């Protein structure tokens, strides 16, 4: 079922909490190296769906595989193959840049030689050589965000999950951040990203829009705009989100 070209596959994936169906039989496929936008209003079920794919939550029913591993039985292998970055950037402010990198590489069990070499490369790439031994606290927000992303893909995962990674960041920095995402995608990493910014949805290869736990639309941004007779992704989103019965949380 999972071809070599597929990074994530979900079939009727469902999660219920008691009577409440947070994720209602969603099906989709993400290709390797693709930038996949995962959109939806607050409370639409994005986070729950993402948690299932990351192996943090066991689905109630349906099938899904991530990097070729089953979300029911092979969560350990999944965790080894993915990276994750959340809105909070998840760096330790009281640790230096270098210590943060070493820590996250360490919990993925990377060798010292690998960590050393890649850290040097990364610091050069981000122009952070001068700041390597400074506390993360002292970095500007935009740098923290870039560093967090670099840390999330440091262990060279097949897929990286980005949960609203650009929250609270200015447009220029967001643009730069998306350049990093493109670069990562070019190197073969699959990007699975949730966002609230509709201009960012335009940057994705394909976009899915969740409403009330279901995926109501899934296509390239251009095709979606055509289908919904909209000028922008913003309009597409509004047309779909208006149907929602659940209120945001």
């Amino acid at each position, binding site marked *: 079922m999972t071809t070599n070209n597929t990074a994530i596959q979900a079939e009727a994936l469902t999660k219920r909490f008691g009577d409440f169906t947070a994720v209602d039989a969603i099906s989709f496929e993400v290709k390797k190296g693709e930038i996949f936008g995962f959109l939806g209003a607050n409370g639409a079920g994005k986070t729950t769906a993402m948690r299932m794919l990351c192996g943090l939550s066991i689905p109630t029913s349906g099938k899904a595989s991530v990097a070729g591993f089953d979300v029911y039985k092979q969560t350990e292998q999944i965790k080894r193959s993915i990276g994750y970055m959340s809105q909070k950037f998840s760096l330790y402010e009281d640790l230096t840049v270098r210590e943060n990198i*070493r*820590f*996250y590489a360490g919990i*993925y069990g990377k060798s010292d030689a690998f960590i050393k070499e890649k850290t040097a490369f990364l610091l050069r790439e981000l122009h952070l050589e001068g700041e390597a031994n400074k506390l993360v606290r002292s970095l500007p927000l935009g740098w923290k965000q870039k560093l967090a992303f670099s840390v999330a893909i440091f262990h060279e995962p097949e897929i990286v999950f980005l949960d609203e990674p650009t929250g609270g960041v200015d447009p220029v920095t967001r643009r730069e951040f998306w350049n990093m995402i493109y670069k990562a995608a070019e190197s073969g990493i699959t990007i699975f990203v949730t966002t609230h910014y509709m201009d960012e949805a335009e940057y994705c290869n394909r976009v899915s829009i969740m409403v009330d736990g279901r995926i109501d639309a899934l296509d390239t941004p251009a095709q979606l705009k055509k289908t919904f007779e909209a000028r922008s992704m913003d309009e597409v989103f509004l047309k779909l989100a208006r149907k929602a019965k659940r209120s945001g949380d």
Partner: protein
Amino acid sequence: MKQFISFVKKEFHHIWRDKRTLFILLGMPIMQILIFGFALTNEVKNSQIAIFDQSNDAATQALRTELDASRYFDVVQDIHSYPEIEAAFKKGAIKLAVIFPENFANDLDHFNTAQVQLIADASDPNVANTLTNYATSIILDYQDRITNNRRLPYTIKAEMRMLYNPQLKGAYSFVPGVMAMVLMLVCTLMTAITIVREKELGTMEIMLVSPMRPFKIVAAKAVPYLLLSIVNITSILLLSVFVLDVPINGSLLLLIFEGILFTLTCLAFGLLISTKTDSQQTAMFIALTGMFLPTIMLSGFMFPIENMPLPLRVISNIVPAKWFYYIVKEVMIKGLGIGAVWKETLILTGMLLFLLVLSIRNFKIRLA
């Protein structure tokens, strides 16, 4: 193992960077031992007393000298009328007044009985009690000496011996108490806070998405605080032996083993709190009210459990510090071995396992 080591390293970085907290964690036991040792003591030394001697004979002179010579009293004032006594108390100049009536020696010689009045400042009842006891025993001593010369027909003499703590030093009971308190504070409070902080920061999520197993995360969190606790146990023991002259009569090894057992129990409790809370404030509040207060009130360290009403006595049994306090007293002060404390050790072990199982189960539920 590599994962584990980099995690522990990170924890040490956190602790090391937060110098203020580190200073409190390591300085607190030292401060507490010194404060309890030198300031908060039940012993009363060199209390200022006044004497109203209306007889002024050989017997009252001798008693006066006895009182003044003891290390408990300093005679600072001679009083010549009753109103003066009250004035002295009101000024706070004296804690105790000793009043000899007229013809004291004469009465003693001819009627074989004489009276002496002790007036104490009972605005602090404990001190007043202690002072009158000391004064009474000095007077009785004197009486013993003079009756030796003229044998009374019947006398019963109670001879007292204070076992394990012949000088009745307060340090013997608060060293174990401070140990329980400090370990509780460092371990329960700090583990709870540091795990909950990771939740607040969102870093816990990253950890759970990583291949690191939850059990390892928890263990790595505990290691630095276990080490800190061992440092604290050592500094408390060193201070009590070399500064407060409290001996370690039992096996040091057993004492340290029990200390580690108690530390682990506290860590497990902190872990349980962290699985149940989402903010550092809540965690701190629960740790303080749920553990710190019972440790102080119900461990027997401040207030004797035997005197409590039944419900409190029953509740005190679930306070780990009570058992640890008991064990440390038996081992350190009485010098007893594992034979005397195996039951308490078993209870602590049981509590540790119970808390561990409960918190690991909770930890997993959060993941599902």
